[in-house]
């Protein structure tokens, strides 16, 4: 399928102006993949998130950021300096024909540029403005500096993760917090659109990244006033239980579960081991009906674990995955990105999708639709835009700004 071919999508009637940096970009990508016309508005020179790695062939270049590629598909791109009055004027013209504005500047920044919701709502009463900020628009922490690690920590997702003898640990690499907030922003945008269809009114939506991270809450504290410590499994801290096991070519996670939950599945797992002649008598004769970690000895655990360890060590990750599926046992090997790219299940479902990058002379494979829809599948309609790639298309063809004026705006550093 050609990268820019037009197909009626789920959200075809809607236009989105995306003024976000890395904090909210996933929102526009999702709406774009669902068929909305998303225009990424970048400052002249390009969005700062273009400087985030990893890069195509490791060449640090704002046109080669794989981070940028990943979260800006299905968008057109224009450059516009909204700090300048001429830029603000142009943005306001764009707002008149837009349904949604998504932004992630510091709280109050858009108001100071006369581009806040109160200003834009006057121009277009139906406009929906979604703001993504670390802590939200109001409240005692609204102005704090908060990169991913701070939000991850303050949202409560870090304290209990990691080893008991080391500091709490976040998820490595790019920000997970920002992507979650982008997802919530897309959700909130759809809610606000729904409300607009009922009432005709737009509204302002305030998304807080910390609150997005904190969505799991902590009912252990809420109900029992217990804090979950790091590196402790929760069953019985006085015995050592294997959770992560080495296998032939990696790691696999498996725990003999106690109680009702484990009876069938532990036995099924032992049967599988036995079918390959690897379950010892102790394991085969074990009574799962009364299996409970609270009064177990380390010796019993060691005797359960020894043959289990040998079994895992004699299989590859893929063999273990296929076996778990076949025997309906609840465990998965620890996949890395190579395993994911080679997953048989994903290719059987036609998950991966391709986008052409003509300027790189290549085609890149992307994660496909986040869900399969019977009527209107989401899809990557185009690769992420180059800097100012659609300036002409948007400014000249759609807004009707004549060539000489465009040139003037360019010289003035507006576009």
């Amino acid at each position, binding site marked *: 399928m050609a990268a820019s071919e037009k197909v009626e999508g789920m959200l075809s009637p809607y236009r989105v102006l995306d003024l976000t940096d890395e904090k909210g970009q996933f929102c526009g990508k999702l709406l774009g993949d669902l068929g909305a016309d998303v225009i990424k508005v970048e400052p002249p020179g390009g969005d700062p998130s273009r400087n985030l790695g*990893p890069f195509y062939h*490791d060449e640090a270049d704002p046109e080669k950021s*794989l*981070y940028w*590629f990943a979260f800006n598909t299905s968008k057109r791109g224009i450059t516009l300096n909204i700090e300048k009055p001429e830029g603000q004027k142009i943005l306001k013209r764009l707002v008149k024909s837009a349904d949604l504005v998504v932004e992630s500047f510091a709280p109050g920044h858009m108001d100071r540029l006369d581009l806040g919701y109160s200003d834009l709502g006057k121009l277009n009463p139906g406009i929906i403005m979604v703001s993504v900020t670390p802590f*939200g628009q109001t409240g*005692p922490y609204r102005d704090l*500096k908060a*990169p991913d*690690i*701070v939000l991850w*920590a*303050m949202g*409560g997702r*870090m*304290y209990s993760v990691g080893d*008991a003898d080391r*500091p709490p*640990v*976040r*998820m*490595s690499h790019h920000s997970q917090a920002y992507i979650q907030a982008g*997802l*919530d922003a897309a*959700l909130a945008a759809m809610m606000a659109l729904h*409300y607009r269809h009922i009432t005709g009114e737009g*509204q302002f*939506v*305030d998304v*807080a990244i*910390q*609150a997005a991270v904190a969505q*799991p*809450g*902590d*009912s252990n*504290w*809420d*109900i029992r006033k217990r*804090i979950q410590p*790091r590196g402790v499994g929760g069953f*019985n*801290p006085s015995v050592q239980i294997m959770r*992560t096991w080495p296998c032939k070519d990696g*790691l*696999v*996670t498996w725990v003999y579960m106690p109680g009702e939950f484990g009876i069938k599945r532990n036995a099924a797992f032992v049967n599988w081991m036995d079918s390959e002649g690897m379950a010892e008598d102790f394991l085969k004769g074990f009574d799962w009906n009364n299996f409970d970690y609270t009064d177990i000895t380390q010796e019993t655990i060691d005797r359960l674990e020894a043959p289990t360890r040998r079994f895992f060590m004699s299989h590859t990750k893929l063999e273990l995955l296929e076996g778990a599926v076949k025997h309906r046992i609840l465990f998965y090997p*620890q996949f890395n*990105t190579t*395993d*994911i*790219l080679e997953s048989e*299940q994903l290719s059987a*479902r036609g*998950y991966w999708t391709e986008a052409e990058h003509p300027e790189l002379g290549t085609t890149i494979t992307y994660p*496909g639709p*986040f*869900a*399969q*829809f019977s009527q209107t599948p989401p899809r990557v309609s185009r690769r992420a835009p180059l800097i100012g790639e659609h300036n002409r298309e948007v400014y000249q063809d759609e807004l009707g700004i004549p060539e000489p004026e465009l040139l003037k705006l360019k010289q003035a550093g507006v576009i």
Partner: protein
Amino acid sequence: MAKRLLEGMKVLDFTIVIAGPFISRMMSAYGAEVLKIESRSHPEIFRTFGPYRDDHPAPFNPWYNRGGAFGVFNTGKLSLALNLMHPRGVEIAKQLVAWADIVLENFAGGILKRMGLGYEELTKVKPDIIMLSSCMQGQTGPHAKHPGYGTQLVNLAGFSNISGWPDREPATIGAYTDFIAPRFSLLAILAAVDYRRRTGQGQYIDLSQYEAGIHLMSPLILDNEVNHRVATRMGNRTAYAAPHGAYPCRDRHQDRWCAIGVYTDEEWQSFCKVLGSPPWTKDARFSTLRARRENEAELNRRIEEWTVNLLPEDVVQRMQEVDVPVPVAILHTGRELEEHTPPVKRRSPYTVPHGAYRCRWEDRWCVIAVYTDEEWLSFGRAIGSPPWAKEPRFATLAGRKEHEDELDPLVAAWTVNHTPEEVMSLMQAARVAAGVVATGEDVMDRDPQLKHRRVFRELDHPEIGKYHGIVPAFDLSKCPAEIERAPLLGEHNDYALKNILGMSDEEVEELIREGIVE
């Protein structure tokens, strides 16, 4: 009162545990009417998961109404206890489909279809129904029928592999995908509702939690494909900042300690049993009092490894529950510790192990992230300009990255004398990014920002008691979220059968008699 955002939207909800119920919980918060189908003979499994307020659900209270996590993920829903194993139960479910706008389910692939409640069947009852199935790996393909939980799916989706320390096994990160997938699911549903409003067409949405989750790995997937680099875990480090990590802080509570004194060999045997008889307790170096004295430093370290994960109350309980109780006491406050210092801290020739051991709750942390060289100068000033902060080797980001292993302990040596709240406010005042590594208590009870946003709302449940529900992370200026407590099992049987389906009292009684409604 103004109309609520999703008022009038009717959701028939077959979902279980987190990834499904989280979807309808968000819908309920904005006014959708959510009818949860569950049953007494096959209760929604999350009803059995706890946490329970008193750990042991009293027998006179049906246990399936007391689970705290169920209470959190099912706020504002109605409950119909309907036995779907019975053909008439399935018939009633179909009648409810005619009432519903949206049907949600998250069983393992194909289960609902085999019960006669697949999308094709439902369209016969309601042609424009929107149905969403959310399972581990999607409804098609060789792994479709594999059941599972988010705690396992995080392994397959690669999140575990990028969590933890490079020299260690991946960290256990919990059911991350369970909190991601439902947001994708609701986005899909709302988009499908919009499409139906415009075209009159419903549709079926097959959401694989695996496929949705991989979107959060996107840059790393592209990096692998383009540069053949396999992403792995890197602790708290990042290429763009140093220092960047979690640093130890002083406790905001007093330190927590317990005192243990093992006098006799019987007590030593008991003591080892309480610890679960790990292999080191059988080591000859600890087998006699004399040997224990000789190796006391190592012994104490090993004991502390155990106590540090427990509340002192837990230590006392365990030490007292064995046949030969081990002398043990809680040292509640710093002053108490001071006062006990002579008998406890002084090494006794007759008692080994003997001492005060650090317990849980002294484990407090703060994150700091210094990106620019300007921020580094601010950081140095904020901590009182110690000489090391002026060393040229730390002056640039490249230098700090190169010497990160030396830098981190220096930062930690400063943070450890401050509470995490102090570190955060000192750093933020200097415009350096920092934050408390929040515990459950911080998030639920203390964080003023989350309080300000009213993310957690107090609810009163007849069996759980007071607890907190959760609203989404977004505030819509014209449509406030409102939540109510989770339902008791079958609490709305009458409403569903009489008000929605128009059944008579006699019909309902018959259904109950026959075990179809429970």
